[in-house]
């Protein structure tokens, strides 16, 4: 075997041809904090990938600031290796990531390098054919983790123009999160951008993870490919997420892009763009993708750090002037493409962490204005035990209702209004002792509605079961049940319904509707089951 390898290496060396030709070069004149100042390279492009030839090998960098006599570049690799006097070469390429089906189930960094010890992601087709014959002869490290062919994989630039108006169509397919409160009151459509905003420890990531897990059980629609982008998160948190997705069998249709807190600001800055590029690959192939940016507050911080080190002028809260454009161009890449372009979609769930519920800070207001709605989570509700701690009054979905299924629309129509009235009455009741029967029943209904919307983490509910649960609460089937028993009783009824009248749930799931006949059968089944 070693003889064969030596022979192949000899052939490679003998066949090596090198024609010296003029190349554009520059010199590192200053370096520090992951930023290099480079003289020369007057023809470098903005965002071009540069190759710094350090004494221990090449280090990648991106041309950020193109000034009159030098370039401000952000070092992507180990900045400690770069020294003053190192030569820098243009590559003629912009930063890109290789995207393909092989990425499914993998954890990668923003440059596409695997972080999960599962081996090489893409086989080099040239290497596999010329140097090592067929793929069967290949060393195990050169095979893809799932054994798929790399032929369909493609390099996708991290920065790419968003689809134009003509390429798009309105959001028309629901993306079910498996969370009753969201799917009923703040519906999300495929291709939408829905912000998840709230203080720390209010369940923002939990909503995103539930959404990923739910994609495995949302039948009747195309499988959604989920991309979770962790920006500036703890490695332990990312590891927990990977484990959870594995346990819930959701990793097979998910990809995790991780730029943890320990990674340089440059990688944290690139991470969401890498996630968007991977999502675009699936969208362009006519598939539906969901990308979660967790979180854009840390992304803005990383960009602020880079900008300040590059000596760009600071603006409000020391963020650079183009921070709005940064997030706008990222989120604008989410789209629902028209049928001529394959009908794929890229849905975005950006996450923003607020400080003490202050949504009027710079970054939260920016992202609120860019997105098509927000799910607002409150600490107070969380500590009251209302989980998910969604503030139904401040949460909106501007376009999702057109994608909501008819069945859900029918049952949840009154829900939002009833809850709003309940909250108003609840505040009023604190000062009043005598209440008329009508008010009392409204309060009782509101309490049960609030209770039915409570849900535990990592247990998304299929859409048809959500429809039944909300139907029960809004139509008085739970009015005589004690508030603290609403969850248990409704759970039991739905379980029995699934066992004894599976056809009703199946019909709702398959038709997405609740016609009169189904409603009639549901009514009689619920009455029967409640008696049991």
């Amino acid at each position: 075997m070693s003889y064969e390898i030596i022979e192949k290496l000899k052939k490679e060396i003998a066949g090596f041809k090198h024609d010296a030709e003029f190349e554009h070069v520059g010199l590192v004149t200053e370096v520090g904090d992951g930023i290099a100042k480079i003289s020369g390279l007057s023809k470098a492009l903005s965002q071009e990938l540069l190759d710094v030839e350090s004494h221990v090998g090449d280090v990648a960098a991106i041309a950020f600031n193109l000034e009159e006599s030098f370039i401000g570049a952000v070092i992507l690799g180990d900045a400690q290796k770069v020294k003053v006097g190192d030569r820098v070469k243009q590559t003629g390429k912009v930063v890109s990531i290789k995207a393909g089906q092989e990425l499914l189930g993998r954890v990668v960094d923003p440059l596409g390098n695997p972080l999960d010890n599962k081996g090489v992601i893409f086989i080099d087709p040239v290497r596999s054919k010329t140097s090592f014959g067929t793929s069967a002869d290949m060393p195990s490290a050169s095979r893809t983790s799932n054994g798929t062919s790399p032929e369909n994989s493609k390099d996708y630039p991290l920065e790419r123009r968003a689809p134009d108006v003509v390429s798009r169509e309105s959001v028309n397919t629901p993306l079910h999160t498996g969370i009753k409160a969201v799917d009923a009151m703040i519906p999300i459509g495929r291709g939408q951008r829905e912000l998840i905003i709230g203080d720390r420890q209010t369940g923002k990531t939990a909503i995103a993870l539930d959404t990923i897990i739910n994609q495995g059980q949302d039948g009747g629609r195309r499988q959604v490919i989920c991309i979770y982008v962790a920006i500036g998160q703890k490695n332990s948190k990312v590891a927990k997420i990977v484990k959870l997705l594995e346990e819930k069998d959701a990793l097979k249709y998910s990809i995790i892009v991780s730029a943890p807190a320990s990674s340089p600001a440059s990688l944290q800055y690139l991470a969401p763009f890498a996630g968007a590029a991977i999502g675009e690959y699936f969208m362009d192939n006519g598939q539906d993708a969901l990308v979660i940016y967790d979180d854009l507050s840390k992304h803005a911080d990383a960009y602020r750090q880079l900008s300040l080190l590059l000596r760009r002028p600071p603006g409000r809260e020391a963020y650079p002037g183009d921070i709005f454009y940064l997030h706008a161009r990222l989120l604008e890449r989410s789209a629902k493409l028209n049928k001529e372009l394959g009908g794929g979609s890229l849905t975005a769930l950006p996450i923003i962490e607020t400080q003490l519920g202050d949504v009027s800070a710079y970054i939260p207001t920016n992202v609120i204005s860019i997105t098509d709605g927000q799910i607002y989570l409150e600490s107070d509700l969380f500590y009251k035990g209302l989980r998910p701690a969604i503030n139904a009054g401040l949460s909106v979905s501007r376009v999702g209702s057109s994608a909501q299924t008819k069945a859900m629309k029918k049952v949840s129509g009154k829900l939002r209004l009833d809850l709003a009235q309940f909250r108003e009455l609840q505040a009023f009741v604190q000062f009043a002792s005598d209440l008329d029967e009508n008010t009392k029943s409204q309060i009782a209904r509101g309490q049960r509605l609030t209770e039915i919307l409570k849900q535990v983490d990592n247990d998304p509910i299929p859409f048809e079961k959500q429809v039944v649960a909300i139907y029960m609460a809004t139509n008085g089937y739970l009015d005589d049940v004690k508030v603290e028993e609403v969850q248990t009783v409704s759970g039991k009824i739905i379980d029995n319904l699934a066992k004894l009248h599976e056809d009703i749930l199946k019909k709702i799931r398959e038709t997405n509707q609740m016609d009169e006949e189904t409603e009639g059968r549901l009514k009689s089944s619920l009455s029967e089951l409640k008696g049991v």
Partner: protein
Amino acid sequence: MRYSLNNYVSAFSQVAKTTSREQVVDGFVKLLKKTGDIKHSQKVIEAIHKKIVNEKGGKWINIEVARGSALKKEKLRHKFSEKDHVDFKINSELVAGIRITVNGEEELNNSLQNKLSKLFK
């Protein structure tokens, strides 16, 4: 540096057009002392030199070879125009061969080091 190289070079070349050579040099050295950039005088002088060469239509050429014995200065010098400034340097990192850099921006690298690094990329 207190002021950028470009600013020093531009100021020098503009004053040099209207003032005598001795006065410009004298004044410039005093300025560098005043700004505390006298320790970077070598860099500044080289930048001014480059500017003068470029203004006259010449190029700033750097030639590096791996070993001194391989350096045929006169032969190489004649390959370039009279207006060009040619610097020679021995750089053992190249292993063998030659590397020519024009105006610090364009490079013709025919060194063994470059060939080896390309072979193993």
